[in-house]
């Protein structure tokens, strides 16, 4: 890592930048200009959020708060737990543990830093992680391994059985930093009694682990509170997802990002509830007026992202969608599998419900919920089996009336690159043009944004979509 970079605490840097950006809209014009000067590289991203109105502002504030929590954890005597984005932070909040989610932090960093997360990603390779491993962990993890972040106290990873390279990164981190490690493991089936039971057993073990290493007991009253909040949030997510079905959809592309960023960072927190309320309100207003959520008001095309979105510097991808008049009708990451969601009904056995009546019911609920977080749910088994990737993508594409399906991932994603070709072929067979992006969602050294954009344009043109 460049020595210049080693001089700064990464969490602190990011925390400051995000905080400054969150403060921008509160200031006068002059103050705003000044703040922008203070965060030159984050300016464009911040602007894009600010342009998105109140929900954008709330997202900025939420991200700032997330860092604030990390930065003040130790002072408040709280333990920090490194975890994956597809492990719901709800349980950690209920135990007063502060989560640090590498993937989310890498995505934020990739959008905010001028040089992207290159230095941190490369640092992981310098100390021995293969350069072929998924970049989504390698980013923020680099700062942690390099000792440039708040010290983590334990590692909980919930991708064994879902994604090797992810689980491997967490296992490596725990070994390298000599911190306790717990894995939530998923068998490749979902929905049957046997796997349900496995999830619960495993989840209970995890709670034991977290109790042991945080010194805190799980407070069931608190858990009930948080879960009730989640229940509320899920209902609003379902509302937003329903509105994605409208034509034109009143949901701006950026909301998708805010939606899952919030879910992975602040599930069960009131900050997220407020953000959702704000998004639902605006979207409903648009819907009532029958207008598109796109800035220029004209929806020319609807794309469904069958995997992840494209991050990297300056939220280029979202701005691109806006410029081209392309509506983002969701990605796998936004999916919420609570039982009352419309599209879930098309996929029996895939849903969960929230029951806060007894401690056991709560544990059941949360274990089932966790087993249905985006990547965990759809990528874990053979892609063409019931309830898995293909079925889910097709149901979504149909329900949201997508014109095409786009795959974006990272070269590190053994998991999806293993069979994305047959997957794309199957999607095409169902009548959806499918584009495979060859870039890295978090690292634009793999393919420059210009090249990515050109390939996207070409796809839309050749396939007669735009």
């Amino acid at each position, binding site marked *: *890592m*460049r020595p210049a970079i080693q001089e700064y605490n990464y969490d602190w840097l990011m925390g400051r930048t995000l905080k400054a950006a969150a403060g921008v809209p509160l200031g006068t014009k002059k103050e705003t200009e000044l703040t922008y000067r203070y965060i030159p590289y984050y300016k464009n991203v911040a602007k894009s959020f600010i342009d998105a109105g109140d929900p954008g502002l709330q997202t900025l504030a939420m991200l700032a708060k997330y860092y604030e929590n990390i930065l003040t954890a130790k002072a408040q005597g709280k333990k920090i737990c490194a975890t994956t984005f597809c492990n719901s932070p709800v349980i950690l909040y209920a135990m007063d543990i502060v989560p640090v989610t590498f993937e989310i932090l890498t995505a934020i960093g990739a959008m905010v830093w001028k040089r992207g997360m290159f230095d941190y990603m490369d*640092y992981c390779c*310098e100390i021995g992680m293969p*350069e072929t491993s998924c970049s989504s962990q390698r980013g923020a993890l680099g700062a942690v391994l390099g000792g440039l972040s708040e010290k983590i106290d334990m590692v909980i990873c919930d991708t064994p059985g879902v994604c090797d390279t992810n689980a491997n990164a967490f296992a490596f981190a725990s070994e390298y930093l000599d911190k306790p490690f717990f894995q939530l493991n998923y068998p490749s089936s979902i929905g049957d009694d046997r796997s349900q039971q496995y999830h619960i057993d495993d989840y209970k073990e995890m709670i034991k682990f977290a109790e042991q290493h945080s010194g805190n007991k799980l407070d069931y009253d608190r858990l009930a509170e948080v879960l009730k909040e989640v229940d509320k949030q899920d209902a609003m997510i379902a509302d937003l997802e329903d509105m994605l079905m409208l034509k034109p959809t009143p949901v701006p592309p950026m909301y998708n990002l805010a939606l899952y960023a919030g879910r992975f960072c602040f599930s069960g927190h009131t900050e997220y509830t407020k953000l959702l309320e704000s998004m639902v309100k605006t979207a409903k207003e648009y819907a009532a007026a029958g207008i598109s959520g796109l800035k220029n008001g004209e929806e020319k095309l609807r794309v469904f992202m069958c995997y992840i979105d494209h991050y990297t510097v300056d939220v280029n991808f979202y701005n691109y969608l806006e410029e081209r008049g392309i509506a983002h009708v969701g990605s796998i990451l936004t999916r919420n599998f609570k039982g009352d969601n419309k599209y879930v009904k098309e996929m029996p056995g895939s849903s969960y419900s929230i029951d806060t009546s007894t401690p056991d019911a709560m544990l059941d609920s949360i274990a089932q919920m966790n087993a249905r977080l985006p990547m965990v749910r759809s990528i874990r088994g053979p892609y063409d089996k019931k309830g898995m990737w293909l079925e889910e993508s097709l149901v979504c594409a149909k329900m949201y009336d997508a014109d095409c399906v786009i795959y974006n991932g990272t070269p590190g994603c053994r998991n999806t690159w293993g069979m994305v070709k047959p997957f794309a072929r199957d999607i095409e067979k169902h009548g959806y043009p499918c584009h495979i992006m060859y870039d890295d969602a978090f690292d634009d*050294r793999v*393919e*420059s944004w*210009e*090249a990515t954009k050109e390939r996207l344009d070409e796809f839309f043109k050749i396939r007669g979509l735009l």
Partner: protein
Amino acid sequence: MSIVAGCDVGSLTSKAVIMKNGKIIGSSIIKSKPRPKDSADAALEEALKSAGVSKNDIKYCIGTGYGREKIGFVNEVVSEIKCHGKGARWMMPSAETVIDIGGQDCKTMKIDKDGNAGRFFANDKCASGTGRFLEVMAKVLGVSIDELGKLSAKAKDPITLASTCTVWAQADVIKYINSGIPIEDIGAGINTAMAGRVAILVNAVKPEGDIFMTGGVAKNIGVLETLEKLIGKRIKRARKADPQIAGALGAALLSMEKLNGNGRNKQ
């Protein structure tokens, strides 16, 4: 009076060094020919000419480099890693970490006080991060390999290059040329991409003490300076000899040790 030689047949260039009483009396760098044997013969011949001695005067000769198994005239062959370590230590007696970037791979190693290689890393599999990468790029840019290195200093806003693959990076470079980006900025981006890959390898051996660079790419000032920035340490500049001949020099030094009997015995 003992004259020894070292011959390094690389993928792109072949080098020979003739030494007498611990001094370099002749050396050569030629472009490699399809057959390593021919390359070796030609390199040696030129070195002999510059030293003004004949082949019969050579008492011992060690071969190294990619084509080492095919050299006709050597007494023994040794790996490049060992030779570069030796050669580097001679050129820069304080060197403890050596970076060798040649035409088809990039190696970093720690050396002890005798120039013996300890831990080392070599990039495998992929040509990006090798001298060849730079050559391909120089060709696309239409500049010479010497000029490419100098572009970094002139750049104002270096591009970021998709650094994963030589072939794909080439496509990106063409795109940048097409869109009218100044050649300096592209060149600097190329050097930076290269340095970035090398930096990972360098940091992987945890560089200590003085760092020295050998191989042809050591002459690329752009890569060298960017690399210094990335690893945050100065890389010593060669004064005693051309860093590209370090491998051949190391081979010659080992020949000398062999002849003087103070080298370790071969198994």
